[in-house]
């Protein structure tokens, strides 16, 4: 229940940016209807939203510190990873909502009139795994880079970027090793190719590393150094 309240708090704190994207997307559509915006660029708001969400990955964390709400959050009887998971949950759910809105608004451009719409193709599980796992991993990695930078007093942004690169390197080295553990699991065939598969072990390995990183982030959140 407390997680739900934290989730609603995220909406209150960051919902404005989401609303701004929605308004921007509607504005583009209105301009398009009046012929003031080229129809070919219908995916422009979506591309912009991807960049916006890239920034939003860590800005809610920075905002907590800036507003001093981090100390209120820490006083709650909730482990650190829950706080971070709630932030990830908000980022992902709000983006899915935005995507649904964007698709509804530009439906005519995405699929033709009378065309059959398939939400997922025959490799739907694979697509779902990638579309959910890739952002989850990305956000966790960015949160880690941000939190680890709290250990230094100066040049935090540069340090954060350095930590991001190193962690990413470690992940690409660890994932193939972990993937071997799950080698016995069946693979997913890639549609349109013959004899090419995505290893389900790989997907599980990325998931395992992401979850491990989330718990490490939780510890970093709980034991933030006093600098």
């Amino acid at each position, binding site marked *: 229940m407390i997680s739900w309240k934290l989730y609603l708090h995220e909406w209150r704190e960051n919902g404005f940016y989401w609303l701004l994207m929605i308004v921007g997307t509607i504005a583009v559509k209105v301009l398009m209807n009046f012929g003031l915006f080229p129809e070919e660029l219908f995916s422009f708001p979506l591309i912009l939203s991807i960049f916006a969400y890239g920034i939003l990955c860590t800005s809610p964390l920075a905002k907590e510190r800036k507003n001093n709400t981090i100390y209120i959050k820490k006083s709650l009887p909730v482990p650190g990873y829950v706080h971070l998971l709630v932030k990830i949950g908000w980022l992902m759910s709000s983006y899915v909502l935005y995507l649904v809105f964007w698709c509804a608004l530009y439906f005519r451009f995405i699929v033709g009139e009378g065309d059959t719409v398939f939400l997922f193709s025959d490799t739907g599980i694979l697509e779902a795994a990638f579309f959910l796992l890739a952002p989850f991993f990305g956000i966790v990695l960015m949160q880690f880079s941000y939190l680890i930078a709290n250990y230094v007093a100066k040049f935090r942004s540069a340090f954060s970027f350095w930590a991001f690169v190193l962690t990413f390197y470690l992940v690409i080295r660890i994932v193939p090793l972990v993937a*071997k553990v799950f080698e016995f699991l069946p693979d997913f065939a890639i549609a349109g190719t013959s004899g090419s598969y995505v290893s389900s072990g790989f997907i599980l390995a990325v998931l395992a590393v992401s979850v491990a990183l989330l718990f490490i982030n939780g510890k970093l959140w709980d034991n933030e150094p006093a600098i």
Partner: protein
Amino acid sequence: MIKRFGLIAVMLVLTAVMILDFKINEPFLRFFESMVEVDLSARSEMQTQTIEIEEGERFFIEVDESRLNLEPTKKKSLTVTAQSEDAVSVVRSEDGIVLKVLEGSVATVSLPEAILPQVTAYGASVYVSVNVAEIDARSSYLSLTDVKTGKIKAADSYVQLTNSTPEIIETTRCQLEIAQAEAKKDQIILDATETVVNVSSVALVKGNAQNSTVSLEYVDEVDLTVKGGTLRVRRTENNLGLHLEGTNAYLELGDHFSRITAEESEVTIKMLRTDAELLVETTGTEISTNVVGAEGPNFSYVRGKDAKEQTLKTQGGILRLYSPFVSM
């Protein structure tokens, strides 16, 4: 303090390891290898043989119930790679060289640029990324990438063209998918019979379609005769020249130049621009429209000074003309 400097020390060491690792190994490659697995078992025992061929000598390939890859090579010699030497047979005759890929085999032919093969496929999967003289496929899967010459004939097959503009494509009972990946500046000449044709991002599409289902998107110019079947044109850029006979057609018209004649066809036209001009001449045609200004069986609908001329001549059949901006 210890934590801070310890962390920085660890990160420095890790950075050094990372730089060395990237120089010596290929971590990204290992990473992606662990993601995508390719069944290499069939390739492990591949054998390559070189075929001597003179410039100008004709080269025929016959594929039966097999898989054939045609790849370009910068070398001057022609090589064939297959799982065994028995998988392919080479026969020399007065007409030229005939390469036969035997049933159930996988063969890759690497061709110098000057040699244009003539391929006959039956029940085969053929992947082509070189220029050809001719391909005749039956009950096959045919994939062409960056093919700029040749004549493609296909029956009961699936044909996929990516960034390819052969001289003519003749299809019967096929599914034909055409997409230009690069700048769309080439033309496609079609002769389709009972074929499902999907074309997108091509400069010019011309030819004939009989009893086919044709869908065109992002095509600059169209010059097509469609007899029977259905036609769907969306997002065309410039010139639209159509002759329809007994066809069910859905056309989206912007402000581009159009000249359409229809006989005993069911034509639905969506006017995308309210300032576009469409001149309609009909005889014995059932008409329904919500377009303001449209009147009677012989009407002209005129808006805007700069609109390009669009004419429609229909004889018999049904004409539905509507604007999405006006309620019905």
